Every structure is written in structure tokens, then in C-alpha cells.
């Protein structure tokens, strides 16, 4: 196998890995964007909602004995899907008890101070969740085990006989499921009355109130949905990557980078943003040491935010 072939193979391999990981990142980002686009709340604790999704998937799988019920392959995915309603209720409750106090039309007029209160409140929630998870679950590395994680589809040989591309089955399944969920979500937002009322509440909360839309309720639904989506994405990630109580921090910047890249406020843009981050991350491995992978994302994030805070994929920029 020649040097060129090795290079081509590793590039292709990185692209494939990047796209499949990017789809899951996309789903993570969509959860965050959902909350941001509808409520204009930057949820600092989003990474920790993802972490909760990972633990929830793990304990549902173990605790409910889903593996014998659905088999080794389907079981983990059933568990991950069950994460959605649980974390939806969790997000709903967090909004109802805490977030609501510092958001909504009432605080929209507070401008800067209102925003800071949201940011700092979610920082507090993040700290409690991370450290609370440490107390409850311990620091041990866990993963949602599926036999697919150690199985791959092999493509090739390509371009002659040397190049082989491996598609990790767990990642591919997760990527496809992520894309399906986003399609469903997109349909729901654009076609249903509930979806439209959420968008109306996001677009102009005061006018939405004049239409008879309960903006507070719309926010609660959005917060619950966003939490559930990110948590499910976390469940998918947990099938390929081990997790721990502080795992949220590693992904929170991934999420923000994706959302900002996609144009803050755009849910579909966030998916493409997440996809791009996945690709950049996997391609960076070709030239940079593995440990600097995360640092790369932060640098990319900073560059994006500083050069083009309105994002690359989204609609017209936000004003603040």
C-alpha cells in the first residue's frame, strides 16, 4: 500500500467518521437551538442535560432489563428512545420551577440584565447537575453497550485493491436515527399548529400573546423538547463513547460552536453547524494530536464567534 493510498484511505475514513459523528452532533445542536430559537435563552446546562440523557439511557437499559426483552441490538435503542419522554418532563419541570422566573415577556424588556440572569441561572443548574451526578452515579466511566459498537460495514476495496473504508455500525445507526428525528421535528415545527404557534411565540412573543398563544407554555414545551432532543443525542453518543458526570463540558462547546456556526436561532442551521463541527473534529485528527482535538473545536468556535457571529448557514443575523 503506497503512501498516497494510505493518505486517501485515512482522509476518506475521517470524512466518513466525521459525517456520522456530525449527524449526532447535529442532533445535539438542534436541541440547544430549539431552546435558543424559541426562548432566546442560552442554556448553559445543555451539556449536562445530554449527560443526564446518557445516564438515563444506561439505567433504563440495565434497570428495565430491556436487553432480554428486545434483544442485544434493539434493546439499547429502545432505551435511548425512552429517554425522550423522561427528559422532556425533566426539562418542562426545570422551566416551570426555575427558568420561567428569569425569562419570558416580563424580562424581555430588562435587556442585558435579563439575559445575564438566564445565563447565570443555567450555570448554577449545570453545576448542580454535574456534581449531583457525581454524587449519585460516581466518577466511573460508563457506556451504553451495543454489540454494534464493535462491528463495522466494510466498503472496498476502492480505487484498485488497497483502500478499505470501515463504517462503524453503532455510529451509522445513530447517525441515521438522528437524521430521521430531525426530519420528524422539522415536519412538526413547520406543519402542525403547535409547531407554528411555537415559531410565532419565538418570532414575536408580544404579538403571539395578542393571538391568544400562551407564550409561557410555548416556552415550557420548547424547553422540554430541546432537553429531550439533546438527551437522546447523548444516548446515541453513549453507544460509542464512554461518559462520566462532567462529560457535558466536553460537548457544551461543540454544541455552541455548531449553533453559532449554523446561525443562532436557526434550528436546521444548527444541524448543519453540528455536522461541520463533527467533520472538522475528525479531520483535525489527521494533522493534530488527539488530545488537542477539543482545543481545536474551541479555537474554531472562537474564530466563528469573533469573525461571524451571525453564523454561516442561518438566516439574517440576530441583532443582539
Amino acid at each position: 500500500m503506497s503512501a498516497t493510498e494510505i493518505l486517501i484511505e485515512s482522509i476518506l475514513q475521517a470524512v466518513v467518521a466525521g459525517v456520522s459523528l456530525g449527524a449526532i452532533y447535529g442532533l445535539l445542536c438542534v436541541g440547544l437551538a430549539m431552546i435558543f430559537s424559541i426562548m432566546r435563552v442560552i442554556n448553559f446546562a445543555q451539556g449536562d442535560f445530554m449527560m443526564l440523557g446518557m445516564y438515563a439511557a444506561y439505567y433504563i437499559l440495565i434497570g428495565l432489563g430491556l436487553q432480554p426483552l428486545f434483544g442485544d441490538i434493539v434493546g439499547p435503542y429502545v432505551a435511548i428512545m425512552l429517554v425522550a419522554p423522561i427528559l422532556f418532563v425533566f426539562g418542562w419541570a426545570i422551566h416551570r420551577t426555575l427558568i420561567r422566573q428569569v425569562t419570558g415577556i416580563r424580562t424581555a424588556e430588562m435587556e442585558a440584565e435579563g439575559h445575564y440572569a438566564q445565563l447565570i441561572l443555567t450555570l448554577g443548574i449545570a453545576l448542580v447537575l454535574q456534581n449531583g451526578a457525581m454524587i449519585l452515579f460516581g466518577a466511573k466511566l460508563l457506556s451504553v453497550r451495543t454489540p454494534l459498537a464493535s462491528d463495522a460495514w466494510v466498503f472496498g476495496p476502492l480505487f484498485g485493491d488497497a483502500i478499505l473504508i470501515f463504517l462503524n455500525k453503532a455510529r451509522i445507526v445513530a447517525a441515521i436515527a438522528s437524521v430521521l428525528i430531525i426530519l420528524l421535528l422539522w415536519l412538526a415545527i413547520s406543519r402542525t399548529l403547535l409547531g407554528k404557534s411555537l415559531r410565532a411565540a419565538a418570532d414575536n412573543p408580544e404579538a403571539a400573546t395578542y393571538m391568544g398563544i400562551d407564550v409561557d407554555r410555548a416556552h415550557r414545551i420548547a424547553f422540554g423538547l430541546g432537553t429531550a432532543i439533546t438527551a437522546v443525542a447523548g444516548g446515541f453518543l453513549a453507544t460509542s463513547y464512554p461518559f462520566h458526570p462532567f462529560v457535558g463540558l466536553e460537548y457544551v462547546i461543540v454544541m455552541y460552536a455548531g449553533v453559532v456556526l449554523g446561525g443562532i436561532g436557526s434550528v436546521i442551521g444548527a444541524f448543519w453547524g453540528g455536522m461541520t463541527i463533527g467533520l472538522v473534529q475528525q479531520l483535525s485528527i489527521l494533522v493534530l494530536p488527539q488530545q488537542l482535538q477539543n482545543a481545536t473545536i474551541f479555537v474554531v468556535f472562537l474564530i466563528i464567534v469573533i469573525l461571524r457571529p451571525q453564523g454561516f448557514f442561518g438566516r439574517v443575523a440576530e441583532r443582539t
Partner: protein
Amino acid sequence: MDLLRSLIPFFIFAAVYLVIALLVTNSYYQLIITLVLVWASFGLSWNMLSGYTGLISFGHASFFGLGAFATVLAQRYLGISPWFMLPISALIGAGAGLLIGLPTFRLRGHYFALSMLAYPLAFFYTFQWLGYPEVTVPRVLDNPALYMQFSDGRVYTVLALLLLTIIVIVTRMVERSRFGMSLVAIKQNEAAADAAGVNVLAWKLRAIAVSGAIAGAVGAFYAVVILVITPNSAFGMLVSAQALTVAMFGGVGTVWGPIIGAAFLIPIAETLHAELGSYLPGIQGVVYGLAIIVLIIAAPEGVFWKARDLFMRRSDTEREFEDADVVTLPTARRQVTDETVLEVSGVSKSFGGLKAVSDVSFAVKRGEILGIIGPNGAGKTTLFNVLNGFQKPDAGRIVLNGVDITGLKPHQVCLAGAGRTFQIMRPFKRWSVADNVKVGAYARAEDEADAEAIARDAVRRVGLAPLSDRIASTLTTKELRLMELARAVAGKPDLLLLDETLAGLGGDEAKQVVDVVRGLAASGLTIVIIEHTMQAMVQLVDRFVVLDHGELLAEGLPENITRDPKVIEAYLGAKWAAHG
């Protein structure tokens, strides 16, 4: 001296704290007593940037961690003493502050906070990659004191108290100078500060440099006390969160806040950590998290302000009755000269497809009072924004005193001699009238005393002298308008742009403000005032410029303008004009 007097409560606190610290011999409690001071110092560093400018930093661990790592690595590999590294770390922190601030200050609000988060995380992974998962301070056996190592833990407490004292003094000095007041002005209303001649970016950079320096030094000292540094203990999120939490808990924008916050939270968190840490390993984080949550919901401005407000409110209600009224000044005769102060030619400004101002030209003579009127949405405020530099015109030229000011930044326009007030008032609520006005004086003042003198004069000129010590939040709308006027006057402008200064005032109140504005004009100021309605304006202005749909509809003397059919139509509708 004022500064010293303001520090007396702190010195009393420090003395009491020192006595208590010296009495404690248990080495664990000693450590906690020292850490309270360390985190209070770090909280003050955060406060310097975020408390005064209102730009929330989630990334103060950057400066702290750089200081800590620099100090430990310098001793370990180069044999340099922490005594030397402490000031060096401060320099490193300041440098990092400038490097981080320069690009990041382009951002506001959410974006700023999030970007600040990315820096320590990037450092975290970089230091891990560089191979420093854990670095210990080497024990020095000969002359340990030369390397800031002491067997008696109380020495650290004394050093920490010294460090805190220096930081408190620096903070106090900043707070009471134009530096601090400019920062608070930026926090309260960046646009107004800019228009009042405050160079916003320059002050923010100074703030982050000082803040970074403090954090760097505190990080260095922390490393010496703790002896072991990991990327997580230096750059971890909990580090940044701790700075933010102690400052916010105690109260933002005051020296006492971080001290109160640290004194409350650090002992609780540390004790819980020591007692329960082995069963409940994350208990510290939970405590900080809960503290933040409870705080934001119950007392978002912190313990200090909450207590102060409760106290102030009580004393204010007592004062309610001594209603010192605004002094009405005698109106002098005024002279309008032929000299042109402001010349606007062909100015246009569009937003998307909407032409907010299109091809507007007019001139203002020295000593004149010009009224710009027009119905809602006529483009009056946009015109002002273009005049004072908030927005760049798409076309046209603006000449002030013979100097082309087209496209200059607001603080430059202010220095060129044009002051302005705003339709929506944003006073610095907790400050006295005199201090509010002082912010406007900094643009011209030589020093603090000069600023005070200018401010006093401006307050007098608008007739607010009897109220100059009143806290802004207790003023009436009319008094606030006059205070805004005084703030603009304190910038010693030749030209004053007044944005709906009479809006929302009743007949008598409007009359009083009209008298003040006339008085200002009589003293040589040139005034351009925007209003929606003509009612009070007819008595005030020499000449009207009428805008409608962004265009100049009419221009002339008040008596002619109020009879002009075009103007009547714009205001009352075509049908009214027809019945006329």
C-alpha cells in the same frame, strides 16, 4: 483623604479577621481562613471586569490558571521564587487579558460570556497535552521563606490578607475615579456612555488588563498555598464559577460583594467537602450551584445590595417630605449670531428598503434653538443617530464648527463639541445626581476635582443644585430629564442635541424644562431639539424643521409652520387641512 476614609470599614474588617486568624492553630481551619481571602481576591478580579462593565465572564480561570502554572513551572524548572513570580504572574494575567479582550470585546451579551468560556477550556486541553496533568511545587529545605514556604500556616493568611488589601485599595481607587465611573457608565448604557465621550473599548481593555493582573497574581498565590496544580484546578469550570459565584452572591460592583460572598460560601463548601467529600464527592459544586440558583431567583443583585436597598428605602421614605424643588433660573436675553455651528447637507440613511432619512439639509446658527418635529416614524431619531455618530449616513455631509464629523464615532463627535440626550432615560439609578452628571464631565475634565467642579456647574445651570445629593432613583421624570440635560451640558458642548426632552411632561413641568433650555441657549449653547408635538415647542424654538417620511417637509418660523397646510396635513390628516 476620601479614599482612606472609605477604606476604614475594610481595615476594621481586616484587623478583626487577622486576630481571629492568628488565634486559629488547627492547620485545616487555617487553610480555609486563607482560602476565603484567596477567593475573595479572585472574586474582586471578576468584579473588576464583569461587576463594573456588566460583561459577564465565564472564563476568569484563564488568567488565574496562567498565573498558577507560570509560578509553579518557573520554580520547578527555572528555580525562580514565587516572590518574584507573583508580580510576573500579574503581568502575564494583564497581557492575557489584553490579548483575549481585544478580539472578544467585539462581542456582547451571550456571545461574550460564551467566548470567555472557551479560553480556559482551550488552555485546559493544551496544558494536558503539554504533559502537565499534575505539577507539584518542589519543597525547599534551605531558606524556605525565600520561596514563600512557611511551616506556620498563619503566615499564608497574613500574606493573603495583604494581597486582598492591595486589591481592595486598587478596586477602591478605580471605583472612585473616572476609570470606575466610565466602566459603570458603560454597564448602564453603553450607547449613552459613548455619546458622553467615553472611549468604550479603551476602558474595557483597561478593565480586563487590571482584572487579569489581579487574577494572575491570585492564581500564583493559590498555587503556593495549595502546592499542587492540575489543569482542572487551574482552568476548570469550577474555578471560573467560583469567582463569579462569590462576587454575585455578595453583590456585584462593590468591594464588599466578593468578600461577603467568599466569607459565606467558602467555609460551607470546604467544610462539606471535608466532612462529606469521601461519600459525596461533588458536594462543593452542588453548594455553589445551589447558591447561584437561589441567588438569581431571590436576590439577583447579591446580599450586599439587597441589604443596602432595604436600608436605603427606609431612610428614603423619611426624606420624602422635604421636597426640595427645582430652582427656576432667570432667563437672560439671547443672541443668535450669523455664525453657522452645524451644517447638514444631503444626509440620507436607509435600513433595508426603508428610507428613514432622505436627502435632508439644514443649518443651525450659534445661539439658536432649532426644533425638529414630525409625526411618529418621520425619521427624527434616526437623524439624531446619524448626527452624533451612532449610525453612518449613506450619503451627505455633517460639518460641526467647520470640521467634517461625518462618520466619526460617538465619543469623537462628543469631543468635537456635540452632546446629546436620549428619549429613553437611563440614569445610573444608585448614584447621586452629582455623580450621574460627573460621567458627562470626564470628556473634558483634567482630573477628578475638575470633573466635580464641571459637574457642579452643570447641575447648577439646569437648576438641580438643591437636589445634587439625591439618589437618581428617587427623582421625578422632570428631574431626571433635567439631570440628563446636565450630563450633556457637563461635556461642555457647543451644540446640544435633545431627544424628546419634553415628552411625557405635563404643562407646568414642560414649561419649567423649557425655561431651563432657554437659559442654556442664553448662555451661548446652540440647541437642536426633537419633539413629536409642537405644543410646548412653539414657546421654545426660534425655528422649526419639519420631517415627514424621512424628508424635509418644511422649514421656518413657528408662526408660519403652524399655519403651513402641508404641516397640518402631516399632523392632523388631509381632511383636517381641507376643512381648515
